[in-house]
């Protein structure tokens, strides 16, 4: 409610009294209460953006027909044949947390990776098993070390094509051709202030891969490095910074 003292006939106006009329409006309009807002009053122009620009342009690597290879030596940065990495370094490395400025609730990281083949070059026919795994995960960088983004790891197996019924010769040819690993691997990660210690910023996000052989019955929880080679092609990654807060 805006209350203005009435100006009666005969009142003497001066600068102070005139300005007082404005300041009453000013205070009232600057502190509108909930009841002042009609249903559907707000459009997007009135609202703060729900995304924050942290300078993290999406990244695409790889070209048709050109593979990049990885061995079983451990987690390796995914990068195409030109050296372009599946990695995004925000130009404005964000803190995470609603109480910070700008308030960022969390980062959603999406990636898709085209897997071409996985094989043991020394034993292409005999070393084929659903226990041979290609592993992928997302990591974030605080400027010093890389850490796994929780819930982002994903693995796919070098599955067989119904070996129980296919003729041996057909299987052998099939395995030598080695294309059956061809899959699309989607990765998704969600990074919040619970994952990023106070005072640290997210200076980079990347996708890494590895390959190996899972121990029997381990469901991939324990595995050993073997002779596998993993071939990848195209991949892309995006980061969405979800806004929450006042600025």
């Amino acid at each position, binding site marked *: 409610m805006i209350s203005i003292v009435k100006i009666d006939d005969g009142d003497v106006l*001066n*600068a*102070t009294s*005139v*300005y007082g009329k*404005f*300041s009453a*409006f*000013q205070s009232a*309009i*600057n*502190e*509108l*209460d*909930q009841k002042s*807002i*009609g*249903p*559907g*009053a*707000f*459009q*997007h*122009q*009135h*609202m*703060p*953006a*729900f*995304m924050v*620009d942290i300078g993290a*342009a*999406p990244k*695409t*690597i*790889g070209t*048709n*027909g050109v593979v990049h290879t990885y061995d079983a030596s451990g987690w390796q940065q995914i990068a195409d044949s030109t050296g372009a990495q599946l990695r995004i370094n925000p130009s404005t490395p964000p803190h995470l947390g609603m109480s910070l400025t700008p308030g960022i609730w969390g980062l959603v990281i999406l990636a*898709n990776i*085209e897997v071409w083949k996985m094989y043991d070059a020394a034993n292409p026919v005999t070393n084929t098993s659903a226990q041979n795994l290609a592993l992928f995960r997302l990591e974030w960088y605080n400027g010093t070390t890389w850490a796994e983004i929780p819930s982002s790891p994903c693995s796919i197996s070098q*599955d*067989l*094509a*119904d070996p129980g019924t*296919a*003729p041996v010769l*057909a299987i052998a*040819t*099939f395995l030598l*051709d080695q*294309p*059956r690993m*061809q*899959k*699309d691997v*989607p990765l998704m990660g969600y990074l919040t202030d619970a994952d990023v210690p106070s005072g640290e910023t997210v200076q980079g996000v990347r996708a890494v891969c590895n390959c190996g052989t899972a121990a029997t019955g381990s469901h991939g929880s324990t595995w050993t490095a073997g002779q596998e080679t993993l071939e990848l092609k*195209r991949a*892309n990654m*995006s980061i*969405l910074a979800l806004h929450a807060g006042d600025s």
Partner: protein
Amino acid sequence: MPNITIPNNQADGDVLSSQSFEENLCVPLASSPASLEVINGELDDDNLESVLLTRDLVQRGELFQGEQVGFSVPLDYFSDLFGGFVNGDAASPTENDNLEEFRPIPGVARTLHFRWDAPWVLVLFRIFCNHDGSHGASAKTPVFRLFMDGTQVSGQRRPVPPHVYNSIRYSAAMQREWSGHVMIENVTRGWHDIYLAVASDAPHTRLLNGAIAVILPWGS
């Protein structure tokens, strides 16, 4: 937008001019309105005391615009439909020269009207496919590509592996769900077509189900 700050603080002894009086009433500015002019449609959340923004206070579709469509009825394509298309993973491919052979897939296509320029648009898609293309140097396979307004989106190509080896069909083991996402930046307001398209030199390609989702964030 900042709170109103009346531009001319008038105190005792000041000469009250018509100009300063008028400026306090109305100073139309493109930004930072600093007079009572702000009540002419310029009020926003900065003018609120502590207010809980509930859904009923915001117009529908003003924070995000998003749509998803899909299909679950098998769609059959035969290689005759695609002219002389040769997939890009085979010998002597024509794929890059024959992008016009890619056919939008019903149910994985959307025409949208963007009400404002968008800093980015997030597109998510998936497709489940089966076919009878053979392996070898001249492997016959379907290929999927994402298009926007008739132009392919960079990096959004999904090649499907052969399903037939030595006349034995391995579709049960080889069939895959192909998925992807892409964040397309700086999309202008207006109508846009976004669709996944297929071309194939496999004799018979069957698409079993698929979907596409488009998400746009608004906000100032």
